[in-house]
């Protein structure tokens, strides 16, 4: 450590799209969520609680906006002033978008959040000092702070409930930031198994908890750089490219007839989740 490092140009480390020593080789994990299939049932959200040791904060803390749902279902109504919402509601599963140029990564004072070579935005709990700058910067507000000491003081997992805790995931203490990790414990386990067998992870071999639970199979997850993977084929069919913040197809006259889009794409965080728009029948 020296004075010169304090003044070095750190903008060179801002990853805009894969480059340098983090090349998305051989994996870049990405997701595609079909909003026309999503029924808003919340199975994914509960599965995430089960898989990732998420604390149940209780009514008061929920009221304070301190809920810890890494995956949340947002429900929107049409704003057309009609008497009834007779075209239904719109459900949006919102989780960490694992942005390629994540606004949260650059502002952590201690470097607790970084980008992994397989395209995920990492969060290291023991390095986090709880400045909450990252969640302040996140446009999706998908970062959750441990305002309270859930395991000990709040006793969120009283005897026997603590036996359900997943040993592959850290149980977070007070004062650290957490967020969706694309079930990286599952990814690491699958990568390790595949590596021992001398191969790469096959499409469909590893599923995130939310994807595995979803009864309508609205969530697709896989390796974006594997041309045989479902997620790659979906992104390609929808003509959405990871490293663009404006897609060519949207420049067409009259807009695109394809459903794929990313949220807040124009802010250029380059999110790794592509959503496919909900559809409505006009004949009725």
């Amino acid at each position: 450590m020296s004075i010169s490092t304090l003044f070095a140009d750190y903008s060179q480390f801002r990853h805009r799209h894969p480059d340098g020593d983090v090349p998305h080789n051989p994996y870049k994990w990405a997701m595609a969520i079909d909003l026309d299939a999503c029924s808003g049932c919340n199975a994914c959200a509960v599965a995430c609680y089960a898989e990732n040791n998420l604390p149940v904060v209780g009514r008061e803390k929920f009221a304070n906006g301190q809920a810890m749902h890494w995956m949340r279902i947002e429900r929107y109504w049409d704003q057309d002033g009609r008497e009834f919402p007779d075209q239904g509601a719109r459900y949006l599963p919102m989780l960490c978008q694992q942005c390629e140029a994540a606004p949260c990564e650059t502002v952590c004072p201690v470097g607790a959040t970084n980008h992994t070579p397989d395209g995920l935005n990492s969060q290291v709990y023991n390095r986090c000092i709880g400045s909450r700058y990252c969640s302040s910067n996140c446009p999706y507000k998908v970062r959750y702070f441990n305002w309270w000491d859930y395991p000990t003081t709040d006793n969120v997992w009283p005897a026997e409930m603590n036996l359900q805790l997943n040993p592959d995931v850290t149980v977070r203490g007070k004062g650290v930031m957490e967020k969706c990790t694309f079930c990286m414990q599952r990814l690491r386990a699958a990568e390790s198994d595949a590596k021992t067998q001398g191969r790469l992870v096959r499409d469909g071999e590893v599923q995130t908890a939310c994807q595995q639970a979803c009864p309508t199979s609205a969530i697709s997850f896989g390796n974006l750089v594997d041309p045989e993977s479902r997620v790659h084929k979906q992104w390609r069919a929808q003509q959405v490219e990871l490293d663009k913040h404006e897609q060519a197809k949207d420049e067409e006259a009259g807009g695109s007839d394809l459903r794929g889009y990313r949220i807040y794409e124009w802010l250029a965080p380059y999110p790794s989740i592509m959503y496919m728009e909900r559809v409505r029948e006009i004949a009725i």
Partner: protein
Amino acid sequence: MHRFLRLSVLFIGLFSVLGSYAADAPQSEPTDPGIEGSAIDKAAKEKSDGGDSAFDAWLSKYFDSDPDNIGPVVKQPIEFPHFRHAGDHDKGGMEINCMYCHTYARRSLVAGIPPVQKCIGCHENIESVRNKPRIKKLFEYWDAKKAIPWKKVHDLPDFVRFSHERHIQRFIFQLNRPVQEVCGYCHGNVKEMTVARRQKLLSMGFCVTCHEIQHPVTAKDGTPIGDQKYWYSMRKPIIDVSSDLKAQGPNDCWECHK
């Protein structure tokens, strides 16, 4: 008065900082001894082409065979003698492979402690030591069908995910290094111990030291070392000061932090 107090505390702090940094004065980056041969095993030493002194120096700096005994003495239910079981023949040991008992090391995150069944498997046939006090204690556990409450010696913090499988697969199965040497990188010279005692720091810096080693991507004659399987999960090769292409081990936070 207050200014003096503050200044003095500040200076004390600065001195201790400088002091600690002096102790860890940066040294030249260790270089990789290469795939071929290595080390403690005499046979392997003979196989390699003689330029061993640099490697020996490196090895002794980081993986000395003299016990460092960094960790506390941990009292176990039975004072199990590793030197008898894993030790060299000429010292009265049986040279049992580490993984005979710590079976899961090649396929799990943890190496595992053998079930009582494993000990009994041999000991029920070794009449000569059947009445030794510790063996009698072993049989007490077996007869009561009670698991031996071994204490964990190398207990990394809960936010760390260390995979024995990956390291065993690489060093033993891919690089063909001898088992005792590989286990010894982190666990020290276990065959000289009774029960295990932590020999190495096992801090993040300890792990990162190895992951920072610059591996030459090509041999001296230009042929590439290893195939895609060898390099995948290493960082992308970079050209270092000596204009050679070198690659380092994984430095992805999420490889080890969970």
